[in-house]
């Protein structure tokens, strides 16, 4: 029962986070000077007052702000993400036609999640052995070598690293792996010919380099975390007891030290999934993906002056949903793996330093 109450509370927090971020997006949009009319009249050099008013009316921006907010929420509740502004076309001077956001958003989410989830798996697989190696010999040369060489991954920017990998391992030099583009996991329809790309094999081949890029970036952080956890746990009483009972060092590590370190890593992965999506901007760019991160930058106009509000809102909603679900999954894992969880909230936990910053 306590667990149920705990998850109810977590769900309420999640909902609160989602609502506040949508509201924050609206507020940021309202306070930022932008000219949505330029989406409707892309060819106008100087927009007339009529054009601006007309465009605002067609885009629904002349409604009261509360109406805009709540009608967006209402439609979102029905799974309707609205239509993009970037693809808007004015028909007969009185209505707008544009592409719906939902199918596009789901595709982008698929690409980004492919990078993040696969990359996170590789990070865990590499960081746990490396961190255990370091943590069992803190202060030695081997420990330092590991921590310095993993720092190379952080200091080489993911866009640079990705581009280097794509250039040298990809089509231009060694041609070992595809140097870019995304292949959906779903097999292509049989009618689309042999050149069509899709299915598990193509997908994983295209994902290898992005995964490596992602993993190298996060390796330093997670190796350090495993290292700290292992070094701490080695001084615990239960480890001493295990040793006293004659357990071999390998068994002590396997049975008592590594599991708790892995648990901490899993927690961090769940908490930093949002940060990882931000990093994906660069990985997607380097490999020519069309994922959430890149879409977000383009929807916000980047260096341009106009913000595509519905697209931005859709992306914000999606990212927040991913983050919230990620956190919930981690809490669930915790509840299953660590019987002490559920009593204490996750309030004390916070993102890692690099995570909080990127």
């Amino acid at each position, binding site marked *: 029962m306590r667990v149920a109450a705990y998850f109810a509370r977590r769900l309420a927090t999640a909902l609160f986070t989602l609502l506040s971020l949508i509201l924050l997006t609206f507020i940021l949009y309202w306070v930022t000077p932008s000219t949505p009319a330029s989406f409707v009249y892309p060819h106008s050099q100087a927009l007339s007052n009529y054009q601006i008013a007309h465009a605002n009316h067609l885009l629904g921006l002349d409604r009261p702000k509360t109406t805009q907010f709540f009608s967006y929420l209402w439609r979102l509740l029905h799974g309707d993400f609205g239509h993009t502004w970037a693809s808007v076309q004015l028909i007969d001077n009185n209505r707008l036609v544009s592409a719906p956001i939902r199918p596009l958003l789901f595709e982008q989410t698929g690409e980004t999640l492919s990078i993040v989830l696969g990359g996170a798996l590789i990070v865990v697989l590499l960081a746990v052995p490396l961190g255990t190696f370091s943590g069992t010999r803190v202060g030695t040369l081997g420990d330092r070598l590991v921590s310095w060489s993993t*720092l190379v991954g952080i200091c080489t920017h993911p*866009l640079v690293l990705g*581009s280097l990998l794509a250039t040298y391992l990809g089509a231009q030099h060694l041609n070992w792996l595809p140097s870019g583009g995304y292949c959906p996991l779903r097999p292509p329809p049989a009618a689309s010919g042999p050149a069509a790309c899709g299915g598990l094999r193509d997908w994983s081949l295209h994902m290898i380099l992005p995964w490596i890029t992602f993993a190298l970036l996060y390796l330093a952080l997670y190796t350090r975390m495993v290292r700290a956890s292992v070094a701490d746990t080695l001084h615990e009483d239960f480890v001493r007891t295990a040793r006293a009972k004659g357990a071999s060092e390998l068994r002590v590590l396997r049975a008592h030290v590594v599991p708790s370190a892995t648990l901490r890593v899993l927690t961090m992965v769940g908490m930093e999934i949002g940060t990882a999506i931000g*990093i994906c901007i660069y990985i997607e760019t380097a490999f020519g993906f069309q994922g959430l991160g890149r879409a977000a930058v383009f929807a916000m106009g980047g*260096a341009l002056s106009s913000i595509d509000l519905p697209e931005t809102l859709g992306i914000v909603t999606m990212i927040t949903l991913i983050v919230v679900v990620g956190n919930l999954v981690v809490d669930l894992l915790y509840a299953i793996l660590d019987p002490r969880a559920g009593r204490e909230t996750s309030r004390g936990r*916070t993102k890692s330093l690099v995570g909080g*910053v990127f």
Partner: protein
Amino acid sequence: MKRDRWTVVAMVVLAIILVASLAGGTIASHLLGHGPDEPFPYANAGYGVGPHTVGPWTHVPNTSQTSLDSYDNVIAPPKGTPTTLFVLGGDGLLGRDELIRLLDGGRTSLEVGLGGVIVALLIAIPIGSLAGYFGGAVDAVVSRFTETIMAFPMLLFLVFATAKVGPSLRGIHHGTLLPMGVFSDALLIGIFTSFYPTRLIRQQLLVLRNTEWVDAAHMVGGSDWRILRKDLLPHLVPTMLIWGAIAVATNILLEVSLSFIGVGVEASTPTWGSMLAQAWGTIYSPRAQEPTIWQTVFPTAAILLTVVSLNQISEGVRRALEPWSRR
């Protein structure tokens, strides 16, 4: 601290980096006879055929004019043209000196890094102390707010802010000491990275305010303000030093990220980020040309050296001030 060999090494390295980026650019351009922004078209050995930027230690014809044949093809410069030395090679199509730009870029990058930390601390210390010391409603509001913001990718906020607010802040600059865009970058990075130290301070004060010496200070009639200032804030110094050293490093990396989105410091101002962005393009036009390996190696190596030494210093400070922590 004295026995911590690696931390001493890291401090020496950092001191060298600081001196090199503060004075190195001026000295180098004085010795070599050309400045950071002077283009040397012949630093592209391909003569415009392709981006074959010269590598390290090349003597480049000292002219900003290219000689053309009757078909307007670029040809070798006339015999007897004096040469000038490019110690680390050229920086790309424009053919500027990589070494001088690297040194000058270090100053800009470090300014952004350090400035960001200062701004973040200026925000975090008052807000974090209010939330941690008084608790209650203030704490609830601050905590919910930072939690909500931190749930979302920081980078996207930063892109939004630098793209929309940055241009109006760009005007704040001061000669070569504070190039255009550095102030806005430092300010915005500082604002958006302040959530982390805010939470750190809050957490620490939540513990500290219940200690006996705070009770004692209350008993002798110390005001909240005095207790905060005299008794509690000094305890935050180690945490902030440890955080600050790492944050300078991450801010430098963040500046690189912003350069790649094309919203950071002016593209003409050398920073380690803009040098990498010049080599690899921004996210709007990635890989405009295939850069030479040197254009990637030198800025990355500079960043690596700085980050590793800051990281080591942060570790060393923690070990010196918190001897009870084993890692």
